[in-house]
C-alpha cells in the first residue's frame, strides 16, 4: 500500500502527514456528522466521549496501530495524525530490523 506526497515520493500508507490528516478528518466527519477544525480540541467542538472512542477505533483499524489516547495532550486531529504517523514509522522500522 502506498500513498503519494506532493513531492511525488512514494511512501507507505500512514507515513504522509497530509494524507493521514485528510483521512482522519474524513473519519471524524463520518462519525460526528460534521466538519471539525483539526487544530481544535474535539471535545471543545461538542464531541462526546463515546463518539471519540468510536473515531479512535476506526483510526486504529485503518492504520493497523493501537492508538493510546493517554499519550495525547489534547483530542486534536492534527496531534492524533502525528501520533499515527510516528507509530506507523516505528512499526515499519521495527519490521525492517526484524527482517534483517
Amino acid at each position, binding site marked *: 500500500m502506498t500513498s503519494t506526497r506532493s513531492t511525488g515520493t512514494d511512501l507507505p500508507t500512514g507515513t504522509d502527514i497530509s494524507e493521514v490528516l485528510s483521512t482522519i478528518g474524513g473519519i471524524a466527519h463520518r462519525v460526528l456528522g460534521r466538519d471539525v477544525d483539526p487544530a481544535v480540541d474535539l471535545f471543545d467542538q461538542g464531541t462526546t466521549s463515546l463518539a471519540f472512542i468510536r473515531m479512535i477505533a476506526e483510526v486504529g483499524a485503518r492504520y493497523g496501530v493501537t492508538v*493510546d*489516547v*493517554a499519550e495525547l495532550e489534547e483530542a486534536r486531529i492534527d496531534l492524533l495524525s502525528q501520533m499515527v504517523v510516528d507509530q506507523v514509522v516505528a512499526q515499519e522500522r521495527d519490521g525492517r530490523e526484524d527482517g534483517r
Partner: protein
Amino acid sequence: MTNTLDQRFTPTADEVARFHEQGYLGPFTVYEEEEMKRLWRRERLRLMDRSGAVYDEDDAQAGNTNIANYDRHLDSTFLADHVCRPEIVDRVAAVLGPNVLCWRSEFFPKYPGDEGTDWHQADTFAFASGKPQILWPAEEREFGGTITVWTAFTEAAEDTGCLQFIPGSQRTMHYDETKAMHYQPDKINGRGKDGVNRGFYGYDYRELQKDPDWRPPEDRAVSMVMKPGEAVMFWSTMMHASKPHSNPDKPMRLGFAGRYVPTSVEVYPDTDDVDEYGGQVSLQKYGAVLVSGVDTHTHNRKVTATTRGHVFPVR
C-alpha cells in the same frame, strides 16, 4: 469543630464562622481558568484508560449514571493530587479538624438538555444504597454528613447546570434516608418539579421527604456560578440542587466532587459492595485516603498510593 493548625489556605476565623452559619464556603480558586482548561483537555483522555480503576464497569452502568467512575482519584495521578490540593485540604481541615480522609470522589456531568438535580440533603448516604456509607462516632453524631468540595472542571453557569444552595439549611434534615426511593430510569429528563425539569439520576428525591407536603424554600436559593478551576465546599446536609443544562450551544458542564470526613468517621461500615443508581461495584480494591494529619483509628481500610503507585501527598 475547628482546626488550630494554620496552613497557607486556611480560612480566617470569620470565614469558618460563615461556613458554619451558611453551610458553604466559596467559590474559591483551585486552578487558574486557563490552567484548568489545559489540564482537563489532557486528563479526560488519560481517564479513558480504566486499566487501573478500582471498580469494574460490568454491572456499574445504568440510566445516566456509571458508578464505576466513582473514586478515580484512586488510579489517576491528576485526581489523586487534586483531592489533596492544599487549596482544598486546608479549608476542609479548618472545619473538620487536622485528621481528614477523602472517602469518595465523583464526576457530575451535565450535557445540554439534561435535567437539573433534585433538591436534596445527604447525611449517611444511605438514600440510594440502603445502607449508611459513613457513620460518625456516637459522641459526634450531631454533625453527620460529609464536606463536599465541588470543583468546576468546565464552566458552571446559570444555563449550564450550576449548583444551587439554600444557605443555613444544613441543621435540619427534611429527608429520611432510611426510606426507600424507587429507581425509575425511564423518568430521567422527563419530570417537571415546580416548573423546573429535575430528577435525581433515576430517583425522585421527594420520596424521602419526612413531610410529603413540605416544599424546599427555593426563594432563598443562591446559584453557585463558577469558572473552570473554581470550587465550593459545603456540608452535604445543606439543601442543594443544580439547574438543568438548558443551553444547547454550550458545552457539557462537569463538576468533580471530593468528599471528606474526619478519620473518626467509619466509611462503608460492614459493606463489601455499593449498590445504587441501578449499578453495583465491589469495594475489594477500595481504600479511603488520608489527606491531612494522622489516622490513629483502625476502622477504615486505607490506601497510601494510587493503583499506579503515585503516593498521595498528605498535608
